């Protein structure tokens, strides 16, 4: 009996090995196959002892082969390990790592989103005969070993929303959160509130969660991973991957594939290698804190030693976070630090996991510092040390100056002004009481000659004063396309009967807007720069920060050079000081012409510096998205990490009382929309723009559902509550001014 079980178990093991190598290492696999086959044929003829010996020998051979194959595991093999149905799932972890658990809101497929699993679990520590139960909130994607309804761990927006809800519950209950990331990526549907919008909300809230958050990465697919991945400690399983995009997706982009075409396995493997997606790569890049070792060829549910190890590491990380916030625990804190090698015996002493008051503040401070340091030095930053220091110092000075001006001097000034008004009004009442009768008499005398008809007529027919800024469609910047003598057809011509427009009219006077149906044609970012901001108010800063190729992705250097030559820019993000109708502000512009407006380290860094600048200057911050295709995949996790990193900067700015406006133009998709752009409370879109998580092609490819027309259209985004308004490009300046005057926080210089 036992032998039969062992045999079928070995067969499963063999399938697993076979699957993860996808046709490679055939010689080893054939030997194993042969042995298993041979044993299953002759087992009837053997007696029990012989059978046990034979099967043990095969088991040892399996162990040996697995160890042997482990040595030359490629990135793509790891991807296949992670995706294999035999890989450990969150429920295995709940069973084996925690001492008890209750699943919250879901039994099998009866759940709002079965791919997101939430559980209240506890860890029991026994210490000197006393038992301590320590509660944690466990949140993570559940693949259910390939159960269909789990959707492969691809979480829908409402699944992420529920995750966020229970993170807030954990905050209320003051218990740590353990997140386990088993997702190939978020499910790209735009139903309320939209995949991007929900991830952005999660990031925004997690940036200020006042409880320790520990994340464990097994399969970290881009946006889906970030939705629960913003943590104080980020552990990673040694056979996991954490990447900006699936290797297949990267290959499709790299190979410039059309819809329906498939990338070759070689290209996919090459992309997987170059994206630096493994745990070891990510540890080197600094985006995870520690690797949790797995058994050879990856952990499967029967690797109990692995679970014990994982338990130790998770407890240690939680202890570490909690202790780092404590004013007095130097020795324990030192012992728990992840870079300390050696056994950490959680049972040896007890750490209470509540974080209160000052400790919570410190927790947040450390979390923000941690993410702020990420990806430093991964872009080309030719600012000299001296300049950077000067900028740092001037930042401090600006901050101090503004604190004095607005907080210390500004508030009493307001009080004085209102006091003066009061006194003035009072005196007027008094004065009127005395002089009133005289004036009435005077008026009665003079009333006959009050106003001659001639004077009235003069007032009604004379030329009045009037200065109209933008009449006759005269713009400061005219698109070069307005110089071509050709007719342009509106895409709505069939439906709306729009006449063809002459390019000089359309791109000049009409500002790229169809005069019949109002369709907005894409315009250059310069149009925005010169027609929306006050003339002569635009001053660029940090323009020397340059996009680089931190992963040395092949052929990418040339493509960057091309992009730089084509646009005359050094990165896809331009940051400027500017003004709109006299209101000074800081703006970051993501430029679609520079590699699709994708965000890499340089763009993230510039964005972050701009947000910090706005915060120091007490100025509003405007993100104008001329277009963005998402995170720059060639920078791998260096790019992905900009999502939490910039979102946290925005959170700091908003908490300090700023005004963060986002305006989307043309097409804005993926990572940036799902993080630092999407988290703004004031997002607006230009008409005919598209805002969403994934392009229609990607949605069709990953979900198989047919995308309805205009799925990502601005008005759809408005209907589902992602953006707060759809604006006409020609009225952008007026609308922005209105927004600056009426929206935003308490701490703006002009308030």
């Amino acid at each position, binding site marked *: 009996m036992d032998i039969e079980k062992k045999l079928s178990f070995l067969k499963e093991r063999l399938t697993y090995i076979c699957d993860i190598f996808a046709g490679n290492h055939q010689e080893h696999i054939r030997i194993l196959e042969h042995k298993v086959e041979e044993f299953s044929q002759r087992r009837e003829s053997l007696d029990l002892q012989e059978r046990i010996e034979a099967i043990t020998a095969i088991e040892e051979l399996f162990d040996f082969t697995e160890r042997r194959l482990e040595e030359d595991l490629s990135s793509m093999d790891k991807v296949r390990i992670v995706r294999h149905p035999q890989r450990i799932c969150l429920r295995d972890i709940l069973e084996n790592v925690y001492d008890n658990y209750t699943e919250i809101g879901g039994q099998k497929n009866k759940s709002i989103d079965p791919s997101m699993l939430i559980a209240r679990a506890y860890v029991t520590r026994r210490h000197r005969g006393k038992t301590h139960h320590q509660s944690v909130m466990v949140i993570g994607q559940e693949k259910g070993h390939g159960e269909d309804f789990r959707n492969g761990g691809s979480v829908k927006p409402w699944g992420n929303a529920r995750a966020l809800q229970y993170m807030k519950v954990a905050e209320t209950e003051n218990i740590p959160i353990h997140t386990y990331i088993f997702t190939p990526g978020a499910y790209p549907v735009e139903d309320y509130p939209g995949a991007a919008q929900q991830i952005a909300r999660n990031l925004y809230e997690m940036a200020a969660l006042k409880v320790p958050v520990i994340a464990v990465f097994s399969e970290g697919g881009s946006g889906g991973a970030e939705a629960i991945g913003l943590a104080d400690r980020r552990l990673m399983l040694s056979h996991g991957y954490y990447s900006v995009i699936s290797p297949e997706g990267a290959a499709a982009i790299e190979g410039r594939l059309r819809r329906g075409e498939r990338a070759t396995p070689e290209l996919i493997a090459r992309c997987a290698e170059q994206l630096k997606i493994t745990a070891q790569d990510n540890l080197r890049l600094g985006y995870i804190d520690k690797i949790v070792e797995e058994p050879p060829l990856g952990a499967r549910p029967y690797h109990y030693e692995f679970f014990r190890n994982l338990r130790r590491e998770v407890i240690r990380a939680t202890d570490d976070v909690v202790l780092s916030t404590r004013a007095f625990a130097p020795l324990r804190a030192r012992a728990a630090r992840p870079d300390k090698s050696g056994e950490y015996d959680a049972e040896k002493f007890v750490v209470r996991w509540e974080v209160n008051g000052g400790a919570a503040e410190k927790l947040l401070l450390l979390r923000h510092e941690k993410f702020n340091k990420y990806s430093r030095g991964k872009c080309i930053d030719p600012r000299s040390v001296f300049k950077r220091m000067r900028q740092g110092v001037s930042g401090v000075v600006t901050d101090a100056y503004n604190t004095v001006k607005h907080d210390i001097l500004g508030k009493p000034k307001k009080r004085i002004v209102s006091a003066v008004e009061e006194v003035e009004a009072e005196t007027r009442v008094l004065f009127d009481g005395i002089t009133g009768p005289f004036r009435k008499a005077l008026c009665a005398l003079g009333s006959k000659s009050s106003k001659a*008809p001639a004077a*009235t007529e003069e007032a*009604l027919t004379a*030329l009045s004063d*009037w200065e*109209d800024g933008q009449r006759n469609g005269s713009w400061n910047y005219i698109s070069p396309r307005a110089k071509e*003598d050709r007719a342009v057809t509106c895409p709505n011509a069939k439906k709306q009967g729009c006449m*063809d427009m002459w390019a*000089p009219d359309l791109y000049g006077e009409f500002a790229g807007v169809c005069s019949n149906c109002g369709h907005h044609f894409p315009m250059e970012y310069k149009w925005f720069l010169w027609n929306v901001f006050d003339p002569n108010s635009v001053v660029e800063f940090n323009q020397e920060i340059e996009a680089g190729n931190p992963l040395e992705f092949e052929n990418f250097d040339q493509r960057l050079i091309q992009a730089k030559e084509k646009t005359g820019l050094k990165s896809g993000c331009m940051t400027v000081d500017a003004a709109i109708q006299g209101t000074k502000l800081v703006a970051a512009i993501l430029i679609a012409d520079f590699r699709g407006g994708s965000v890499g380290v340089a763009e993230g860094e510039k964005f972050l510096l701009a947000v910090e600048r706005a915060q120091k200057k007490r100025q509003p911050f405007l993100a104008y998205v001329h277009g963005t295709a998402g995170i720059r995949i060639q920078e791998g996790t260096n790019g992905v990490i900009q999502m939490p990193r910039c979102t946290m900067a925005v959170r700091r700015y908003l908490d300090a009382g700023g005004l963060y406006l986002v305006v989307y133009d043309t097409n804005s998709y993926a990572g940036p929309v799902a993080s630092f752009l999407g988290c703004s409370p004031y997002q607006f879109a230009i008409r005919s723009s598209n805002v969403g998580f994934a392009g229609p092609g990607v949605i069709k490819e990953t979900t198989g559902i047919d995308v309805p027309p205009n799925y990502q259209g601005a008005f759809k985004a408005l209907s589902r509550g992602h953006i707060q308004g759809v604006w006409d490009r020609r009225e952008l300046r007026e609308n922005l001014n209105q927004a600056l005057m009426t929206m935003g926080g308490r701490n703006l210089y002009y308030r």
Partner: protein
Amino acid sequence: MQNSSHKVLVANRGEIAIRIVQACRMLGLDFVCVYTAEDEQSGHVRLAKETGGEKSLYRVSSYHDANEILAVADAAQATAIHPGYGFFAEDFRFARRVTQRERGLIFIGPSWRVIRELGDKINTKRLARSLGVPTVPGSDKPIYDEMEAEEVARSLFEFQKQCGTEQPTVLIKASAGGGGMGIEEVYDIDLFRSVYRRIRNYALRQFKDEGVLIEQRIRDFNHLEVQIVSDRSGQNPVHFGTRNCSIQSTGLQKRVEVAPGFDPSSLPYSFDAAQVLTDITEHSLALAREVRYDNVGTWEWIVARNGRPFLMEVNTRIQVENGVSAAIARIRGKRGVNLIAEQIRIGLGEPLGYTQEDITFEGLGIEYRIIAEDPTNRFTPSSGRIERFSWKEEPWLSMHTHVPTDAAYDIPTEFDPNLALGIVWGENLSQAQERGMDFLDHLTLDGVDSAGAPLKTNVGFLREKTARILQF
């Protein structure tokens, strides 16, 4: 014509297209016409076929499609475009495109800047005010502030009371509107705010601009026009007299036009009519000089019962009723003035060649617009088939029509319903009126409408009004 190498594309249809073709032939210019499927039987197609042959005709899908018109211009190697009236006549973008495209053409009409400047009513009003030209009392800029709006309305009511106006009325219009949309009257200052807010919200919804204009509504007035002609130099505009277009349909469409605008020699007026005519021509010329007007155009005025004129707008095109001004005008004493030919000539760059002193006026002209419509039923246009159409030729009559007299004609429903223009000239008012009645008496216009009943026309209405012309 010194420069007869030009080829004019006639971007219009019907009566005006015929007259442009005739003028081109008179000037010895080549021409090319366009027509749509509905217009295959129209007079302008026949005339073009007769005089220019098949090569002078291009079929287009719409008279409104600039790309198609310009493609024809290129295919036919035209060097100039005459827009006629309607369609592209006052479209400054079309004029700009015609002149600025790679293969540039001459736009026979004012230059695009002038069209743009005078096409904007607010701008025209402000220009007029800057020159002291009288305009309707009220605001000359869009008002965005409710307090300011009420202030203006209040003083307009007060002003009308002082002037003794019977029913003081204030107009609120969306400054971005036009064509009767977003416009409402207010009779009482207490009702002003509610109407103002309604119009402002309408304007915001409809035009994305909540600015409104607030003006006095002048109720009892005559509609006068001044015909201006100026060459490309823009330096020396002349006028071709005034016209009175006060006889209109219920939809405020002109039905009878008379030149000159008033006749103080034979009719009594409660004001100095001759002085009013002089004033409005002088004002019109002043404005034309200011903007360097460089083609033909019409300055539209209203004259209130007390004789006060107000400039309404400028039509930067040749108008339907140009013929009636030409009928009474003499250049250096000669008859046979053709304003369309003048327009083409100066449009192509020739200097005017005469001054105001060379232009004299003689007699009185009446233009009747003959239309298939039912004046007793709010001038509803009738569609149908004209079976017989004839009139008695007279030396004092000129008839402009695209309707054939020798064959039946189906009235197309797509375009404006003018069938014919009859211009009558007389030495004085009474002779002109007699001749007008004579013309209408001998006019035959029979047919059946689409329901099979006899075709209704406005001839009876025109007869009835002839007795009343030029009376205020």
